[in-house]
């Protein structure tokens, strides 16, 4: 009698398992800042491992910085909402695809190996623009 519920729970757990590959780590954070993962709100302590789909949200005094596994670096400014909607990276071949959405606020980027791997493999979306990153350092600002 116990067996079926147990299997059902296991299946539910498997189905609910998020993409668990680490894509980046938090380096620093200050002020009001959270990492939103589905319904969860995580404290961005240094070393926190990020997953594809995570959103970086800051309040008026909040900041966060992080480094991705392809060496891309981000600094998120105050009053921001930045989501990594897609991140795939093959460490061996050093190729991948990377899409970041900046809904509001500011984001500084130094691009890494994904941007170098293929033309426009790294993209940044703002509410009115889709950008293709061709190996550089830049700031995107989206006022409220």
């Amino acid at each position, binding site marked *: 009698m116990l067996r079926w519920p147990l299997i059902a729970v296991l299946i539910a757990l498997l189905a609910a398992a998020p993409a668990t590959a*680490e894509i980046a*780590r*938090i*380096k*620093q954070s200050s002020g009001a800042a959270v990492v939103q993962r589905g319904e969860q709100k995580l404290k961005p*302590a*240094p*070393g*926190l491992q990020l997953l594809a789909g995570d959103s970086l949200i800051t309040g008026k005094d909040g*900041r966060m*910085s*992080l*480094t991705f*596994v392809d*060496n891309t*670096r*981000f*600094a998120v*400014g*105050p009053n921001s909402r930045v989501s990594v909607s897609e991140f795939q990276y093959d*460490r*061996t071949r050093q190729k991948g695809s990377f899409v970041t959405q*900046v809904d509001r606020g*500011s*984001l*500084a980027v*130094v*691009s*890494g190996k994904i*941007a170098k791997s293929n033309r*426009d493999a790294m*993209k940044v979306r*703002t*509410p*009115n*623009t*889709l*950008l*293709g*990153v*061709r*190996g*550089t*350092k*830049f*700031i*995107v*600002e*989206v*006022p*409220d």
Partner: protein
Amino acid sequence: MRALAALTCLVVAGCATSSLVLLPDEEGHQGAVAVLEANGKPTEAVIADGNSRTRLGDPTPASKPLGEQGLKKQEAALLTGLPPPAKSFLLYFDQGTVRLVPESARMLATLREEIAARSGPEVEVIGHTDTVGSQEDNDRLSIGRAEEVMNWLVSQGFDKSQLSAVGRGERELKEATADNVNSAVNRRVEVIVR
């Protein structure tokens, strides 16, 4: 959703003024950013002027030099907040062993300091061999070398959650050689500290 966001932008003045500041990277190279879509329409514009500011949303965006005013205070603060660049170390090994050559053994202390100085570090250790021996043996030897370095880091107090080790055997030679060639340059471990 996107169409709705774009529409909201058109109605609510001010929200369509996303902007881009393009800068040279730390090595002084100037990259570019392509505008693939503006307000939902595909474009082929490329922003390539370093130290420039561009208002986004226009299919043919005009970049302005940052000029004497330079960066805004909050932009400068944002750049200051960027994490340090990843740093790579190369360590070399004696033929057929997981033993570091003396010069590389001396470099370990520098590696340890680099990791210790970073907030929330992530360290990737990648082992390689030369082409002496079979591919299977070299796969084992390369991961053995990477684990040797990783275990030393663990012995120095770094947490395993900060470290990962892989072996690439003789697949990624630093110096291209024929099979069964002894090469000191190829017998290496690369350590990437992020």
